[in-house]
């Protein structure tokens, strides 16, 4: 894991998770807001632990899905935007 000072995405608490066939439904009861995450976004969510940088996450996913390595960076960017829009992560 990178010791860098780059910002690291961190899941916000109080989300309810339901994993359905490797995809994820995130539900925030206080905001009554639900978010659908496909398989990649679902993995990303697990990796947003406040310890890993975006670069770390991208590298991990590229290792796990070598056949999709070319598009992983874009997928990570898209998923992070989605998480941010829903207020599901913060950068620490």
């Amino acid at each position: 894991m990178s010791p860098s000072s780059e910002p690291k995405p961190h899941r916000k608490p109080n989300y309810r998770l339901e994993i359905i066939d490797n995809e994820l439904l995130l539900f925030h009861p206080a905001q009554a807001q639900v978010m659908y995450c496909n398989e990649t976004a679902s993995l990303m969510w697990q990796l947003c632990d406040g310890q890993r940088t975006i670069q770390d996450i991208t590298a991990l996913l590229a290792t796990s899905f070598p056949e999709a390595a070319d598009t992983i960076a874009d997928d990570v960017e898209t998923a992070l935007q989605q998480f941010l829009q829903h207020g599901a992560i913060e950068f620490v």
Partner: protein
Amino acid sequence: MSVNHRRLITFAGNTIAIEHSDPRPAAIVDFLYRHIPGDSNIPPHTTYRIIPGDQPEKMVLYRGDTLIYEGDSEATLAELLLGDSCRRLAEKSQNGLLFHAAGLAWQGKGLFLPGGIGAGKSTLAAWLTMEGLDYLTDELVSVPHGADIMKTFTRPLNVKKTSRAALQHRFDFERHAGHISSTFHADLIPPMLLKPTNTLSEPPLSLIIFPRYLPGSNFVLRTLSGAQAGSALMQCLVNARNLPDYGFSEIVRLAQTTLACQMSYSDLDQIGGKIEELLQSSPGDLRHRRPDP
């Protein structure tokens, strides 16, 4: 002004009352709610009153002490009463999931069409009814806790005037004008006008279709994953704040056990018999069908 008739309307575990005093409002109330039973064991939380106005042709509609309408248009009063009462029933519902959705039945199977305002639910429900399905509702479907059945608020179909063009080759609006309640922007159509043999039921929830009318588009019927279906269902849930866990666990249960699809179309005739084909093969064998890519 005294009232001497009182009708209870019960749906999704709560009751409203409508009071009136003469035959004109009685006919309106019967037109709107003839298929909705009343349960005197559940006290009404809201009372509407329809009373004569200050001129013979005028009527006045109150919810409690709040004036909703005063005027001489029975159709406008009917539309306002129906809309307001649906909202009140929905706001107070807490004994199951309550969705903005149309519902129909076909050969004992329930077709569930969730969608927000403007999704085309009523027009699609009207068309499917004329195709032979049984109309149940175009507005509210309740799924009780732990159950897989559809309880529906069966009201006249509320078809926007802009949808007439899509339906008029199958339904003669002019010929039926005397039995339709029409305002400037919508028609309330009793289901029996669309299908004289229409039969009401509480069918099992067999198929979920999220309809999307897209002008100029091709017909696309795409299977959704469980998570996609769960997310879309949450968007159409009306009474989340009244439910434990905001209904999330129950939504997940439905999404995992019922086949769900998204349907895009630009012309009702594109649909053909495709929905009946899906209903024919559901529920069991298609419930765990993989989503389309």
